[in-house]
């Protein structure tokens, strides 16, 4: 398992955040975006599913649940991207990722959960592989498309009355942090045409211009295959 400093820091920093991440995992991408937005330096520790790192003893001792992404801050270990983000938001209030206004805040929560509960879990590789192996490869693609379509349609409806430059207004908030990994590169991976989703297509174009998102992209991570 590789342990590389994210920036070229020479000195050891015991209190530095550590992110156990996989370049391709959308929730890992989300956490990287949030860390970048808040200007938080961190050590990137690769967890390669291909190599079975998630079953590695050292990893499991630190994080018995074996989940990726996981954030470590001294003795504090947090898994589950939405929980990590809520933790970061409270611990490091700079560049707030939730609006003050309760109604807008709640739109962010709803967007996060459309992604986290109705898209992410059913699009995970183990689920797609099960369908491919038990039904067929075509069904696996259809399944992915169906659920992407459903989730994206719900997001279009949710954001219709709230979208500004970003998902819920003119600042980046958690809704954007969760959406970006599913709009950048992800539809292409499944041959899914995003163009029918006007709000989401426009958001994707905006996200591609944000440095914190650019630097969090899979291609920029130490474990991206060369």
């Amino acid at each position, binding site marked *: 398992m590789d342990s590389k400093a994210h920036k070229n820091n020479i000195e050891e920093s015991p209190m530095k955040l550590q992110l156990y991440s996989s370049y391709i995992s959308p929730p890992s991408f989300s956490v990287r975006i949030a860390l970048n937005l808040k200007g938080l330096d961190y050590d990137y520790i690769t967890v390669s599913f291909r190599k079975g790192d998630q079953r590695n003893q050292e990893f499991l001792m630190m994080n*018995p*649940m*074996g*989940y990726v992404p996981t954030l470590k801050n001294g003795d*504090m270990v*947090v*898994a*589950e*991207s*939405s*929980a990590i983000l*809520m*933790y970061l938001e*409270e*611990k490091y209030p700079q560049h707030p990722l939730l609006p003050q206004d*309760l*109604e807008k*805040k*709640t739109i962010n*929560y*709803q967007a*996060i*959960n*459309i992604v*986290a*509960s*109705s898209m*992410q*879990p*059913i699009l995970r590789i183990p*689920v797609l592989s099960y*369908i491919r192996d*038990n*039904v067929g490869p075509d*069904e696996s693609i259809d399944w992915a498309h169906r659920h992407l379509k459903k989730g994206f349609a*719900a997001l279009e*409806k*949710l954001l219709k009355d709230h979208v500004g430059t970003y998902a819920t207004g003119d600042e980046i908030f958690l809704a954007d942090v969760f959406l970006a990994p599913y709009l950048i590169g992800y539809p292409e991976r499944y041959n899914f045409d995003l163009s029918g989703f006007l709000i989401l297509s426009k958001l994707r174009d905006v996200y591609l211009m944000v440095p914190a998102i650019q630097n969090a992209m899979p291609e920029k991570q130490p474990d991206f295959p060369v």
Partner: protein
Amino acid sequence: MDEANQTILKLFSHPMSSCARRLHLALNLKGLEYECINVDNPLEDPELLKINPMGFVPALVDGTTVISDSYAILLYLEEKYPQHALLPEDLVRKSINYQVASIVSSSIQPLQNTNIINYISEVVSPDEKVPWAQYHIKNGFVALEKLLVNYAAKYATGDEIYLADLFLAPQLYNAIYLFKLDMTEFPILLKLNKAYNEIPSFQQIIMVES
């Protein structure tokens, strides 16, 4: 709380929805009056679709505010109606609550809900329905059992009921009574289930005859 000033909340619900049960528990704990509207076919229900085009249940109406998704609704309720706090003050235990909520709402419930298991039954085999549900619930429970080992007391994260318990109680009901999961390797979760069954309001809300 000044009851005269409280708008009556409206909850669009479904009797078998574990997501809705989380909300019934929360509304009950916070002492909030609400009207419960059970919806059989959310996507074909005109009253629901009028206020919530996404057609999801549960959905909460609070005056002019409409919210769907149980986790979003819970966080909204927590901020708008702070009585009987659903999150501990300290960030460590608060984060454990967020992790439990996320594991249940992202890793477990979506993979054992009616739509998914009916799909599995149809395209793979009816015999695969229960094993599929058990597999995914078990994976989530393995993680939960490890997560809670240093925090569980009378309830999931201490001696008070918090957000984690609202997610766990309905999920445990599904696991044990609907899917007959073997709970031998989950002593903490079993103990929590027993504790939940001793709370009259939990019993009423969760132990619903199908």
